[in-house]
């Protein structure tokens, strides 16, 4: 066996994350209850270190290592960066939150780091087996995180529901992978593409396998009609976990899905198996419309902010699917851009929600935000910024993202999809602005709100600056997104 192909430098960030997670677990018995916060600091530091290690890699020259399993290219590079930032911020805002909820234990941060390593494996994977492993590492960590507040019945429900439905999805994924392997004799993306190209018309086994793979991804990404778990899980989980789950696993799921679609399936240019391609597009087209519309319609009915943001996250997955359906270089670039902006605005909004909530996750209904514009002007203004961006109003990243997504869709002839998309945006304006109505147009209820901790405020400020920057001067981020999709072409 040739061991030269094992490039440990390429997986250095993952090694750092996992070692740091284990270190936290080792340290846990020796850390007094009052000083659990330092465990969180270790996690923040580890994410920072992983990002640092990543920055030494040269994604300009894409190459595969570990026998084609792990891909080092700009696509995995940008996603890994994003995951490290998400994990760092999630750990940072979780420290004061966990203290207040008295669930501040080291395992929380260790699980966060494990989840992060799973996510980065998903983005860098060039093989169905590694993709599956990444998904499982991520999922098992988040199952536990969702139920981290053991004393809370809703958190338990959330965790159990996530676990049961997640396992169901995993079964689909695994069976799909098995069928693909049975039909092509390989699990490697590049090899699958080559084999299916040679085979000509795809076999029924392959089609069923790919369909099951899509169902599995549909569950993980909360695409309609596989979305039913998401609102309950997001609502029941501790808000700090919700913030992580809404952004991290979703971005990772999309990264993996894009890799499978673009790198494992024959391209339309090669036009070896056009049938396969078209059927993917039709299925995803329907999924995009359903996901946008159902997500937005149900979100208008919510009065719990966590639940509202959960449905809005479903809707945003629908917008991202529009880009995947369009299936062009411009559309994948828009997808990457949108995922980054989506992360910033959701993480920012949920960080504010979790800081303003009270012990036991109370004060998360829209009515509780009445008059916040007066009593808490700064958080109210920042939350409004994130909401405006989520609604896709210009001068925010949310607008630029949607602009490029719909532009790509129209260029590829999906005008109908773009029209459904913008009409959905109108719907979303209703519920995002409804929260602003409560903040600015109603009188305060009189309950005092604690000031937001400085570290959390810093994290929110980073998100806010990103949203504005991506909205007013998006060129840099667009160029970055352009570079990141080069290996896909």
């Amino acid at each position, binding site marked *: 066996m040739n061991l030269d192909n094992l490039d440990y430098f390429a997986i250095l960030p993952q090694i750092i994350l996992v070692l740091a997670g284990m270190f936290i677990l080792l340290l846990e018995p020796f850390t007094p209850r009052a000083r659990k916060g330092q465990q969180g600091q270790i996690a923040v530091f580890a994410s920072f270190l992983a990002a640092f290690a990543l920055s030494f890699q040269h994604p300009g020259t894409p190459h595969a290592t570990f026998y084609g399993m792990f891909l080092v290219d700009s696509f995995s590079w940008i996603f890994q960066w994003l995951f490290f930032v998400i994990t760092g911020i999630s750990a940072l805002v979780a420290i004061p939150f966990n203290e207040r909820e008295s669930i501040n234990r080291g395992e929380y941060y260790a699980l966060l780091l494990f989840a992060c390593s799973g996510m980065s494996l998903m983005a860098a994977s060039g093989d169905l087996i590694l993709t599956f492993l990444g998904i499982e590492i991520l999922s098992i960590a988040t199952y536990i995180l969702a139920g981290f507040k053991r004393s809370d019945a809703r958190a338990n429900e959330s965790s159990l529901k996530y676990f049961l439905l997640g396992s169901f999805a995993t079964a689909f994924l695994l069976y799909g992978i098995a069928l693909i392997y049975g039909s092509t004799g390989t699990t490697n993306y590049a090899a699958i593409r080559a084999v299916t190209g040679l085979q000509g018309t795809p076999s029924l086994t392959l089609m069923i396998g790919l369909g099951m793979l899509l169902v599995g991804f549909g569950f993980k990404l909360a695409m309609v009609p596989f979305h039913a778990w998401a609102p309950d899980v997001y609502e029941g989980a501790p808000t700090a976990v919700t913030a992580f789950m809404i952004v991290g696993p979703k971005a990772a799921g999309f990264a993996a899905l894009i890799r499978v679609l673009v790198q494992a399936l024959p391209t339309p240019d090669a036009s070896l198996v056009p049938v396969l391609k078209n059927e993917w597009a039709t299925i995803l087209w329907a999924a995009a419309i359903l996901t946008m519309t159902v997500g937005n319609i149900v979100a208008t009915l919510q009065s719990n902010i966590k639940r509202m943001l959960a449905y809005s996250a479903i809707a945003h997955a629908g917008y991202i699917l529009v880009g995947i359906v369009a299936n062009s270089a411009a559309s994948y670039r828009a997808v990457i851009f949108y995922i980054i902006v989506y992360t910033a605005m959701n993480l920012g909004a949920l960080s504010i929600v979790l800081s303003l909530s009270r012990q036991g996750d109370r004060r998360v209904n829209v009515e509780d935000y009445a008059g916040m514009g007066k009593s808490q002007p700064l958080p109210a203004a920042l939350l409004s910024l994130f909401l405006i961006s989520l609604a896709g109003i210009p001068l925010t990243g949310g607008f630029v993202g949607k*602009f490029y997504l719909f532009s790509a869709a*129209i260029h590829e002839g999906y005008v109908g999809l773009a029209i459904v998309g913008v009409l959905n945006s109108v719907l979303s*304006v209703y519920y995002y*602005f409804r929260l602003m109505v409560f903040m600015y*147009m109603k009188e305060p209820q009189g309950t005092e709100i604690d000031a937001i901790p400085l570290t959390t405020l810093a994290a929110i400020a980073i998100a806010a600056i990103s949203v504005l920057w991506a909205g007013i001067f998006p*060129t840099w981020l667009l160029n970055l997104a352009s570079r990141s999709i080069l290996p896909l072409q």
Partner: protein
Amino acid sequence: MHIKNILSLVTYLPAAAAVLLLLFPRRSEGAIKSFAFLASVTTFLLSLPLFFQFDAANGGMQFEEWAPWIEGGLIKHHLGIDGISLFLILLTTFLTPLAILSSWRAVSQRVKPFMMCMLFLETGMIGVFCALDLVLFYVFWEVMLIPMYFLIGVWGGERRVYAAVKFILYTMVGSLLMLVAILYLFHLNGGTSFDYLEIAGNLARGSIRIQFGEEFWLFMAFLLAFAIKVPLFPFHTWLPDAHVEAPTAGSVILAGVLLKMGTYGLLRFCLPLFPSAAVVVAPYLSVLALVGIVYGALVAMVQPDLKKLVAYSSVSHMGLVVLGIFAFTQSGLQGLQGSMLQMLNHGLSTGALFLLVGMMYERRHSRLIADFGGVAHVNPVLAALFLVVTLSSIGLPGLNGFVGEVLILVGTFLSSPVFAAIAASGMILGAVYMLWMYQRVFLGTISHEENRKMKDLCAREKLLLLPILLVMLWIGVYSAPFLRKMEASLQLVQQRVHNAHAPGGGYRLGQSRANTDLAGATK
């Protein structure tokens, strides 16, 4: 004196001032108000050179500015004005200081955010009128909604939340479909630029291949956005709510400037970009405009609330503007010129009406016509000024409203005498409801004892109304400088419409003989 990048300066000065307002302590309300007022006055003064240095002979864009914005020039920061946008920018910079001055006493809660909203709003409005990149235009168009939403929703009347949400949802539906149309146009143009002048030029030269069906739907998408804004019947239902619930300053800006963004859009985008579709749709739009004129007037007549009456009168008056735009006279510019002038007139007279109603509300905390009566006895100055504005609104010769209305009617008559007759009767209705309202509010005996204690206008309020009255008189007596500066630009729009080949566009051609006869007669 030539100021470099004067358009950027005029556009962004209010926004910069709004950001500076953040530095002011919340309590020093006097300083905040003065600073905001000063900033808006400075903006107005800076916008004056635009008028004086404007070259009337040039129908193209002037004071052009160009800078790459997104992706090295794919989306540009391209500003410029022609004879159409010039006056709307002046109207904006003219009305904003007055609106700010009018809220001196009326706004006592959250003064700082209020002034910031007003200033951001001003930047948005000016930007809409001078943006020459479709995306930049769209950005201003949308961004402007946010401060207006807050103005209505935070400082408005009792049903303010309902009005604010309705306002934003209505306008968003239209504008987002326009965004799809903009993107479609961008890809038709080869996906290289959103520049308005480039796309308009390519369309006019025929170097963009466009099917009539495509042109029709693009036209409709743009039209929907603008028709909601104007508002054209039957898209007007947001307007009475928004106008009535908005604070006085908000109503002034809404009626004075925001509605004109719709008619501006028609002139700037719908006609020059999609002339064939415009010609085909014109008769239907004219009918909708006529319905709006008559319906608005009839509904205004039965309103018990002064503000609602003025709001419905806007539906009627803006219908007239749309009618003039789509008159498409074969020779002569009467329709377009009248519409353009009437946009300004409506901004002035309705703005003034809202200011006056706001002043009366501050005194009596009521806007119901029934709560007044015989006010002229106690408030002679208020009554006199109100009368002048009323007369201007109904188009009395010698005041501004007359010139615009007559031009529109002449233009409409040239293309369709029946339409002109209906429009004229709508204007008679206008005189009825305005004068009847005036009679019930100001004349007769004092029916309510509280009204005896009403104070007459103070110096600030007189100062506020004086500039508007002067401009009204100026346009009424000597409208030539205004008409001359808009002529060349409107000529270009008209040529573009006439040059377009319209499938099934025989609507005007059938009457061409009558047109030339009449045009000859008027000359």
